[in-house]
């Protein structure tokens, strides 16, 4: 069951009329039932002194509230912490955010636990399995009740709008140094290049000046989204008057959300709140550069009609940690014009489909060669027989069968369809490359970096010349399999592949383990783009993407021979089950 109005509750402070008034407004916003508003007896302090106080005043009462609601037959998947509910608690020098801790309410505290729902590369809506790991939890709080209810009013306006239409302001550059800062900067730049254009919004971006200068957005106007990082205090003058709905803003820094109630402080979340943003997030204490909210999973979720609550949960690398997320968990955002998705769901990219088609064509030809070989074996054995009657009775028929499956038949049966496939690829490649706007088949291979089996070339017309560089080496093989969620938890996978010439794998002729040797191993980092597997393995967020092994020359196998393959994943602790299949070497 995904997140919906039927499985969300709003928490208010027992005995606090302003807090209950806010909860009533939220109930009215979504026309929720009365049992979806639940009180807890807690302090009005924004940050509690320690975990024990938090458990006593917030966590355990919310557990009881959930039990009450679920006892009435309603599942709870989303929680909004309302006005004057504590926003976190101190844990040494850190502040653990309420939204982060409450989302893991069914689990004991595990500081900065890796979020296994973070940035899944194959998109999946929030479901029962995810709920067992973490509930969705957001927060709306402010210095005054008016500020808090004003946020609900803005959300109500957004609900009635067809789509968000203002400018997206993005600032990928900061003055932070070091590998983790570079990684976060690259994540924003990657989002800017890949996903941001598909939102079909006007954009404004800062430009790189110097590694030690924090490029800043000077001022926003007609803005709907802001994603920036570092300069950790702002100014009310940063926001011009706007006629568009302000949807979501985030500035990644180390303490922006330490308080949302102390307005003179000019922290970004307070400024976003006071300037009519419907949702925003911030850090209550330093989350580390690897602990910020990440833009790609956040907007990928919204693009797929996910809720704000899902977007928040899927874009936080860690839970039981310091990021506080503000807004209505049920809020959804539509974007202008026709949705152009980052990838095309289950549809295959055309060029990738050609690779599969050419490989399957080569596979068919390789099987034909195997059939020819079997027929020849039968004939040779009959010819070699010392038994005259065997030869007399069987030779004519066996030769006739061979003639029906010989090399000449192979060419005649495959030539037509091979030429059609090649012509299709050539026709569809017109004007895709400026250097070769009208490529022939060989130029298509060169331009795309794709290779073809010599077996395919062998059965087509001589019109399609192919240079040697564009053939797979004879005996080359590669394997691509989908990465499975074997650990059912946050994990870093390595892979082991075995090749055998017997179906029961009693004779292993090749064995490759990425844990021992990374040569040849890569994984699908972005759609159809593979990156080398690192020594740490492949993070489980790539479940559903592909792992690839490409054989080196010393591991090439025999053309037109059938082999038995099996692969298994391993994480830090466990070797998982093998998955096996059979294939023919078609190169």
């Amino acid at each position, binding site marked *: 069951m995904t997140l919906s109005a039927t499985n969300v509750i709003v928490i208010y402070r027992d005995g606090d009329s302003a807090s209950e008034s806010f909860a009533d407004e939220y109930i009215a916003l979504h026309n929720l039932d009365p049992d979806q508003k639940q009180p807890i007896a807690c302090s009005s302090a924004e940050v509690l002194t320690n975990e024990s106080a938090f458990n006593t005043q917030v966590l355990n009462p919310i557990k009881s509230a959930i039990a009450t609601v679920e006892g009435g037959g309603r599942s709870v998947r989303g929680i909004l912490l309302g006005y004057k509910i504590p926003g976190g608690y101190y844990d040494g020098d850190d502040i653990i955010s309420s939204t982060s801790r409450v989302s893991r309410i069914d689990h004991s505290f595990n500081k900065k636990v890796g979020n296994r729902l973070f940035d899944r590369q194959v998109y999946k809506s929030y479901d029962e399995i995810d709920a067992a790991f973490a509930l969705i939890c957001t927060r709306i709080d402010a210095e005054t009740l008016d500020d808090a209810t004003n946020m609900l009013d803005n959300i109500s306006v957004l609900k009635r709008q067809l789509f968000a239409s203002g400018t997206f302001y993005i600032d990928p550059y900061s003055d932070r140094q070091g590998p983790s800062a570079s990684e976060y900067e690259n994540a924003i730049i990657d989002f800017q290049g890949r996903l941001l254009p598909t939102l079909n919004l006007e954009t404004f971006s800062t430009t790189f000046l110097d590694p030690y200068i924090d490029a800043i957005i000077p001022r926003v106007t007609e803005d709907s989204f802001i994603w920036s990082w570092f300069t950790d205090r702002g100014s009310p003058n940063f926001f011009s008057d706007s006629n568009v709905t302000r949807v979501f803003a985030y500035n990644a820094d180390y303490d922006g959300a330490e308080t949302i109630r102390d307005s003179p402080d000019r922290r970004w979340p307070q400024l976003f709140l006071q300037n009519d943003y419907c949702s925003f997030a911030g850090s209550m204490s330093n989350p580390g550069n690897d602990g910020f909210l990440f833009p790609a999973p956040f907007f990928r979720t919204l693009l797929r009609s996910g809720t704000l609550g899902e977007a928040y949960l899927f874009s936080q690398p860690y839970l039981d940690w310091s990021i506080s997320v503000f807004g209505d968990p049920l809020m959804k955002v539509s974007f202008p014009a026709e949705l152009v998705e980052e990838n095309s769901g289950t549809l295959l990219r055309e060029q990738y489909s050609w690779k599969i088609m050419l490989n399957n064509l080569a596979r068919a030809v390789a099987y034909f060669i195997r059939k020819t070989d079997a*027929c020849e074996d039968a004939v040779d054995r009959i010819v070699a027989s010392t038994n005259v009657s065997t030869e007399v009775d069987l030779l004519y*028929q066996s030769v006739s069968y061979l003639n029906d499956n010989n090399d000449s038949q192979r060419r005649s049966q495959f030539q*037509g369809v091979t030429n059609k496939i090649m012509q299709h690829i050539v026709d569809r490649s017109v004007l895709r490359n400026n250097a070769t706007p009208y490529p022939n088949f060989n130029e298509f291979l060169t331009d795309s970096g794709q290779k073809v089996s010599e077996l395919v070339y062998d059965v087509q017309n001589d019109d399609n010349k192919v240079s040697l560089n564009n053939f797979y080496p004879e005996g080359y093989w590669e394997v691509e399999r989908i990465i499975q969620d074997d650990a059912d938890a946050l994990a870093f996978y390595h892979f082991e592949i075995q090749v055998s010439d017997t179906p029961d794998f009693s004779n292993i002729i090749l064995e490759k383990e990425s844990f021992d040797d990374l040569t040849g191993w890569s994984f699908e980092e972005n759609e159809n783009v593979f990156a080398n597997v690192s020594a740490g393995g492949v993070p489980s967020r790539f479940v559903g993407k592909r792992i690839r092994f490409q054989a080196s020359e010393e591991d090439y196998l025999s053309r037109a021979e059938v082999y038995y393959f099996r692969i298994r994943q391993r994480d830090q602790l466990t070797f998982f089950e093998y998955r096996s299949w059979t294939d023919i070497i078609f190169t």
Partner: protein
Amino acid sequence: MTINPNEYKFISDSLGEASSVGVDIANSVGSILNTLKANELDESNTDKQILLGALAGSYSFMIRKHIRVSPQLRDIVLALQEHILHRYNSVDDFLLEKGILVTQAFADISRQMGYEIDPTNIE
């Protein structure tokens, strides 16, 4: 004189292998067709329609040619089993006496030709 048992085993295995590989040929061509159908290019595109037509024709041909029992395969299997039946009452008697186990692929073709083979004589 009856065929040498090792020769019978070798020839029947080869015919079984040729037959089962025929299924893989047709399946591989079918996979090309399915891949084209599943790609992002709209089915109304003329280029796609032309190739889909060509692949559908090729797939049908491969099924006829490599999955159905061809006259040439029928003739060689018939000749092999009749060669046995000149000297034995049944193929099973020969297999049992010589201790030969045929492959399932060959047993399947033999059955289609009317020469049922007992499961105890199949690998």
